[in-house]
């Protein structure tokens, strides 16, 4: 089931919230969560459910064994081999299109569990808790990848008597309100913003040869924005839904495009994946403890594996390595004496000079990330190259009619009509320009949705905003695309 669907919004979510409140009172909250999570997972494609259940049974069996044996390492190796082999088979072998939903995400969730079990950080985790840890529906399909230390205490926590008795507390309503708001912002980000850019991206990539330089820049930029609003919108919804249930999920995006260098970018983009790789790949490889050269190599390995995890084409490796190489170069620079000197000098700066330096950093990082995303999206290396070549060739002309048309949402037709702009020769491009400007301003200057909802004071204005967000999004649901990250 998708969050952005009628059945989730009108049926699943209200029933789960109500059911959970009841089950919390009667002490069967975890059973309830496990059940509804499996329903959520199997809703559209029940055929993937047995694969998930088998994978969970094997992993929990291994954990169980691990708790009872001295040879923990052997079991860990068996577990890692099993999980990675299964993931590899589903993703890289052609099984007639059979790729279980969210296989990458639940595989990593379970690897994290085995690693923590091996390290002795988990004690006596019951099968039910394990089941909820893996399948908990708000994060099951696309993350955030909640590591055991983040989610297990939340799942296993005992409710106080007051909490058990339902929504008696002012803080309970505040929690519901803020998380509902977060869910609505995420829904809007996905359905209205990401999917609008998504149409432009699909239109552009289906007609690469007919595009000029400006078109290609718009297509590249559109994908950068689509991916961010799609994925972060999904995570906002996940956090919102989970928050309404009283379980906090880790933050996955912290305004990544505001980053002034690539290191900062990765502190804000898909944070839980980076945390996973840091804990279970980078640090076991030696992290930064074995000298600079080894550190840089470890970073490159992490980005290589990340590229591999994201997709099956060579272009994903190119994307991973583009980030890896710049990351290492930036680290090298910051580790050097010039870098340190510059850093010290920057600290002493203030006012417009500092702002200008920061602005240039943000612009260059954003530009680089944009180019890297081209490899992430293009169907092949050739097409990625063709798009980037067209940008550098300075091929002129007006923006492609169909491409601009993707931004002309029906609701804006009325505004243009009322303002009598429809006969203006550039009328077709108004929406595109305005949407791009507003969304870029949001990206660079707007507050992160998660931070924003924390500051909201309940009142008429916000109630109206929430209503508009929900109604506009729900009315736009039919015909919306599926999530980009579902296949990763």
């Amino acid at each position, binding site marked *: 089931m998708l969050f952005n669907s009628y059945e989730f919004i009108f049926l699943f979510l209200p029933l789960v919230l109500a059911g959970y409140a009841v089950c919390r009172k009667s002490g069967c909250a975890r059973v309830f969560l496990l059940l509804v999570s499996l329903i959520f997972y199997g809703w559209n494609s029940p055929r993937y459910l047995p694969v998930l259940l088998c994978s969970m049974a094997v992993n929990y069996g291994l954990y169980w064994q691990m708790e009872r044996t001295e040879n923990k390492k052997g079991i860990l190796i068996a577990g890692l081999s099993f999980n990675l082999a299964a993931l590899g088979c589903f993703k890289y072998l052609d099984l007639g299109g059979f790729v279980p939903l969210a296989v990458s995400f639940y595989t990593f969730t379970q690897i994290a569990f085995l690693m923590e079990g091996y390290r002795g950080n988990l004690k006596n985790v019951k099968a039910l808790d394990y089941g909820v840890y893996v399948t908990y529906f708000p994060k099951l399909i696309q993350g955030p990848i909640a590591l055991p230390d983040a989610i297990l205490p939340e799942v296993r926590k005992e409710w106080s008597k007051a909490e058990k008795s339902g929504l008696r507390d*002012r803080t309970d309503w505040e929690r519901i309100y803020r998380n509902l708001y977060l869910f609505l912002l995420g829904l809007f980000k996905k359905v209205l913003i990401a999917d609008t850019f998504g149409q432009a991206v699909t239109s552009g990539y289906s007609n690469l040869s007919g595009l000029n330089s400006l078109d290609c820049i718009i297509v590249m930029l559109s994908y950068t924005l689509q991916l961010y609003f799609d994925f972060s919108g999904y995570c906002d919804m996940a956090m919102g839904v989970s928050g309404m249930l009283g379980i906090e999920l880790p933050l996955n995006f912290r305004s990544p495009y505001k980053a002034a260098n690539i290191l900062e970018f990765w502190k804000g983009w898909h944070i839980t994946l980076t945390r996973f790789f840091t804990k279970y790949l980078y640090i076991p490889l030696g992290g930064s403890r074995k000298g600079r050269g080894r550190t840089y190599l470890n970073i490159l390995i992490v980005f290589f594996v990340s590229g591999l995890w994201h997709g099956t084409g060579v272009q994903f490796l190119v994307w991973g390595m583009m980030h890896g190489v710049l990351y290492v170069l930036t680290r090298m620079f910051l580790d050097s004496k010039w870098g340190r000197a510059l850093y010290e000098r920057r600290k002493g700066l203030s006012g417009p000079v500092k702002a200008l330096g920061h602005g240039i950093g943000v612009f260059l990082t954003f530009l680089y990330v944009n180019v890297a995303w081209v490899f992430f999206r293009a169907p092949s290396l050739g097409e990625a190259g063709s798009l980037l070549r067209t940008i550098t060739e300075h091929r002129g002309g007006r923006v492609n009619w169909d491409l601009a048309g993707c931004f002309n949402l*029906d609701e804006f037709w009325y505004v243009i009509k009322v303002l009598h702009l429809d006969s203006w020769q550039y009328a077709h491009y108004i929406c595109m320009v305005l949407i791009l400007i507003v969304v870029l301003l949001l990206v660079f200057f707007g507050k992160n949705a998660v931070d924003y909802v924390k500051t909201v004071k309940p009142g008429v204005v916000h109630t109206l905003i929430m*209503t508009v967000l929900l109604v506009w999004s729900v009315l736009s649901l039919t015909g919306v695309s599926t999530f980009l990250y579902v296949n990763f």
Partner: protein
Amino acid sequence: MNWKWRRKNRSPLCKNPFRKAVAGFLCLAAAAFVIVAVLIIYVDPFFHYHSPLEGFPYLVDNQLSQNPGMAEHMEYDSVILGSSMTVNFQTTWFRELMGLNAIKLSYSGAFPKDQSNIMKIIFDSPNNRDGKHIKKVFLGVDVITYTGGVEETKYPIPEYLYDDNPVNDIRYVLNKDVLLNYVLRPLADPEPTDLSNVYASWWTEEYYSKEWVLHNYTVPVKVQDEADPASYVEAVERNLAANICPYIEVNPETEFVVFFPPYSILFWNDVQVENHLEATIETYRYISDRLNEYDNVTVFFFPDQEEIVCDLNNYADYSHYHPRYNRYMAECFADGSCKVAKKGEAGKTIDQYLEHMRTLAVTFDYEELLEGK
């Protein structure tokens, strides 16, 4: 318990601004959804719940979404079905020539399954109940589409408008496109569709020219091995048995007028370059013979009309003819010209039509036609 007492002793929860905000939001959102749904159900631009409102300037331009509702809730006694080959029929001609109250329910590129989907709704509609029955179904047959899968539709259909499940109607009643483009836009900018000429093609007169057709025509890749003449028959047989014949059989009072439209001679050039002339001709023969077996079927054959098909000025592309030939075909339906004789009946047989078609296809001078290309 008096009111003042109660007010004083209200629990602190009632004053909780967050609770009030959540409740306010839920009420507002519910009200908004109800208003939208009621408006869409009242106007019902896809005619899913009722017949059109008197005087509302309905916009009808979406075959997949609006045909099922029109079939279910409009009044008619005859139907025009088929692909884009049928969009330029005007239903007023059918009244003028045959006294029929016809409705046009074309689907661009329709596959047999598309015809079956809409025929199911037509024959279950009030127009075929309570003593009423559909008088005639005019069915345009594009042979190539009958060689595909039995369950295949040309485009994914919006199931929620085709089934009887009221729950999935939410996709219709809470749908921005429906609200903005089919309810509010017609009100703001009324241009009601003339149902007689609904779905008519956009080509204006100047597009019907040899130059335009040749400009857009590409000769297909040559195929060396000739297709087995019987190669299509099996799929065609399955398609007829599953999607067409059942409706003919259970509706003996309805006359099915089946016709093969006249594609331009370039269609036959393609057929020969792709090396499946005999297989195509066999397909025509099979469909004609199979359907002509029924007493309530009449078959018309137009592909060999030389004066139409050999002159590309009658076409906007290699298969789409000028609307005047829709008029011509309607006249033939009325007077019986171009009819295919049933077995034992006097008149031109399908074999004779096909022999003429083959001769025309084989002897036509394509080189001269394509010279200027």
